[in-house]
């Protein structure tokens, strides 16, 4: 019977294909979308979960930003924090206490009002150990939050989040955090609707299937309508959203397409308004033939090489410095990658809320040779061949090969390239089983601390073995400083110290390269690639 059904199905398909022609398809999805204000966008890999407290992947968080809204949200042009559920707030003189006043019109998609209690209950949920939230650490700026997640404190009343009444929320921080409002825009801080979660299963455990169509209650500009795994996630404009009058899109279709080539073909076939990314090899042809579709936006993302300073020879700062000086960064950015990347002479990328690194690691081959000779290895003599480990992403090999050649040519240093699969590289990194590692870092918020913190000796993201008490102390002072200029000065000193010791070689500041139909309006180039959907619309 199944065979007969398949046969009928197949004949049906063939007949349809032979009778349907272009004129019977009423335009492409993009053309229909333009007329009906339905945005189609590619989001890369299939998403795992839409629970804001469980999701960690960038695409998941992007969809979640359409379904939920926090106390503050981001400005569509420069991402500075603007009022959302909180219509206004007050900050105490010591910058430790924030009082948020919630707007009366904020509603959940089931009609319930969004209250201050929803926020405290949600933060309690993400900090609860049994949920195992990967983003719980982002809330550690709250007084007592870290102890609560570590299980050292059982009483949530000790955590600095109090609902003074239904519309007033008081937040007490552990230490002054100048970028606290920006931090609040991260999905980890979003409120969730606990009664509807409890209706689907245990609130404080993983595996609760509440974040699905028909069950998910959100408070954002859109509501979840459909989730067809590996096909599309459909969200539609929410009638209960407080600012629904200003939301112009009627729906967004998120298409998880894990192959960048398949995504680019779907874009050309008129299925997508914008792609998640563009295959490296296609940038040149779009630049030449269809520059109006190509976007290369700056992005808070530094590519660099890590040195394992516990290894012989690499534990010598002069060797590291010589290697760092002998990388021709403009050649990598402008001749090899050619996709809007910028040469990186420091670790912190540009655009960091007024912070500009003072120190630089320049490209200077003569100085590099001199420093290497000083260290006792003139012309690279006496140095073994180093291993440079990288994962098999498409352009990593190109850059690794370029660096290998630069070091060979300029310093006489031999490098062996070692290529492994993504998670295997991460495991090697964690175990310290590498000499030189191709790496990158994406900032979470536009503040230098999101970059410089990873080099602290107690950071779980350092991985080089480099530890400097002076560096740690400068960053600690910066975290306690409320004056912006004084704080930036401390960061500059710290970064100068970091570049002098060179446990890393900055290579380039990456850009976000993707395709965008000209009909999409309000899609501003933002450093974090965030685009609040309530400000996006389509024009035919």
């Amino acid at each position: 019977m199944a065979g007969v059904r398949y046969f009928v199905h197949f004949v049906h398909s063939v007949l349809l294909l032979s009778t349907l022609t272009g004129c019977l398809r009423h335009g492409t999805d993009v053309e229909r979308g333009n007329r009906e204000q339905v945005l189609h966008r590619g989001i890369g890999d299939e998403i795992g979960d839409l629970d804001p407290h469980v999701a960690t992947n960038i695409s998941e968080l992007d969809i979640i930003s359409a379904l939920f809204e926090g106390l503050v949200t981001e400005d569509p042009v420069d991402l500075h924090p603007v009022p959302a559920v909180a219509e206004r707030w007050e900050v105490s003189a010591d910058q430790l206490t924030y009082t948020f006043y919630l707007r009366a019109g904020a509603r959940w998609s089931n009609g319930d009002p969004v209250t201050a209690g929803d926020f405290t209950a949600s933060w309690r949920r993400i900090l609860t150990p049994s949920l195992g939230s990967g983003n719980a650490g982002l809330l550690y700026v709250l007084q007592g939050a870290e102890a609560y997640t570590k299980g050292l404190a059982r009483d949530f009343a000790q955590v600095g989040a109090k609902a003074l009444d239904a519309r007033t929320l008081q937040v007490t921080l552990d230490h002054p955090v100048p970028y606290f409002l920006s931090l609040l825009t991260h999905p980890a801080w979003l409120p969730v609707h606990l009664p509807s979660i409890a209706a689907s299963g245990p609130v404080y455990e993983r595996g609760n299937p509440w974040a699905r169509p028909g069950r998910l209650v959100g408070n954002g500009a859109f509501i979840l309508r459909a989730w067809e795994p590996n096909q599309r996630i459909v969200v539609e404009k929410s009638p209960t959203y407080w600012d629904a009058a200003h939301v112009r899109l009627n729906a967004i279709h998120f298409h998880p397409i894990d192959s960048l080539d398949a995504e680019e073909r779907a874009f050309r076939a008129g299925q997508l308004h914008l792609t998640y990314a563009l295959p490296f090899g296609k940038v040149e042809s779009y630049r030449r033939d269809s520059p109006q579709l190509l976007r290369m936006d700056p992005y808070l993302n530094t590519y660099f090489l890590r040195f394992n300073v516990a290894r012989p020879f690499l534990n010598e700062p002069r060797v590291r410095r010589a290697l760092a000086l002998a990388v021709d960064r403009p050649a990598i950015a402008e001749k090899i990658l050619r996709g809007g990347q910028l040469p990186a002479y420091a670790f912190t990328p540009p655009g960091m809320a007024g912070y500009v690194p003072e120190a630089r690691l320049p490209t200077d081959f003569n100085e590099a040779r001199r420093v290497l000779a000083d260290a006792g290895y003139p012309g690279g003599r006496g140095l073994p061949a180093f291993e440079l480990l990288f994962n098999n992403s498409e352009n990593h090999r190109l850059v690794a090969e370029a660096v290998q050649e630069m070091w060979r040519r300029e310093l006489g240093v031999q490098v062996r390239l070692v290529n492994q699969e993504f998670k295997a590289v991460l495991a090697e990194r964690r175990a310290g089983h590498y000499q030189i590692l191709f790496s990158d870092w994406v900032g979470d918020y536009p503040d230098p601390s999101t970059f410089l913190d990873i080099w602290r000796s107690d950071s779980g993201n350092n991985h080089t073995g480099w530890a400097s008490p002076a560096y740690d102390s400068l960053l600690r002072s910066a975290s306690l400083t409320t004056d912006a200029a004084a704080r930036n000065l401390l960061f500059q000193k710290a970064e100068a110290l970091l570049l002098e010791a060179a446990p890393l070689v900055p290579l380039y500041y990456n850009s976000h390269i993707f395709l965008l139909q000209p009909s999409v309006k309000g899609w501003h180039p933002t450093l974090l690639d965030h685009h609040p959907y309530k400000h996006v619309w389509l024009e035919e």
Partner: protein
Amino acid sequence: MLRFIARRLLETIPVLFIILTATFFMIRFVPGGPFTAEKAVTPEVMRNLERAYDLDKPLWQQYTRYLRNVVLHGDLGPSFKYPNRTVNEIIADKLPVSLELGAEALLIALVAGLTLGVLAAVKSNTWIDYICSSTAMIGICLPTFVLGPLLVLLFAIRLGWANASGWYGPVDRVLPCLTLGCVYAAYIARLTRGGMLEVLHQDYIRTARAKGAGQLRVIFKHALRGGLLPVVSFLGPAIAGILTGSFVIETIFQIPGLGREFVNSAFNRDYTLVLGTVILYAALIIALNLVVDVVQVWLNPKLKFE
């Protein structure tokens, strides 16, 4: 025959057990884990995560617990990559898609492959044979990752008849099934031609012709049954491969089938999903091989159920 099938099914149990055990331990020894990510989480968060999935227990305890759940409850566990879905749910969602893709591709492969193969054999060493054989050769040489994008370029991007990717309506079935079907059609055509040529020179065919049987009767009544034997042996593993989904086709056309999960679960270190798909595929391959053995005995009187 029933005894033969019963014995083979009994043999399946230890085979599946060994596959499950080997996979369980092998995937655990692969570097990296389900929560290995670019950005490190704090040690206590990692501990909480591991506790939530029982990864903090000794490996043998995790193994016995998993085995018990699979054998007693048919429960393949929660997925790591998709925290709010179970492996059972993912398989139930995606296996039918792979089965549909496979069945339709197989139909194309059989119809096209057998026609080309029989034509080539009957008209051997004529221009018809050359055309059929060359077409089959091209089909074998042209990998799916070349043919698929070429078809997309023509039918989706140039002509706008179908979507470039997705699995929404009946039209979306055509290009992927055609791509997957073509490759198998090519193999089937080659095997059919070879098998038929061998049979057409046998004595019993000459006898049939001598008795006055017409060309069509000779081909379909006498020759085809023997000529298909190589195709049937090929079809066992081929059907298993085709039905369980093709990673390449599913990736090119973004089809929500199980083939992609089978491969991606290993990259994601989604331990439970790896195990679930491996067990399922192993069971399917064993079952299809059994079917092929039974069909071969039925087609070839020289074979017996021993």
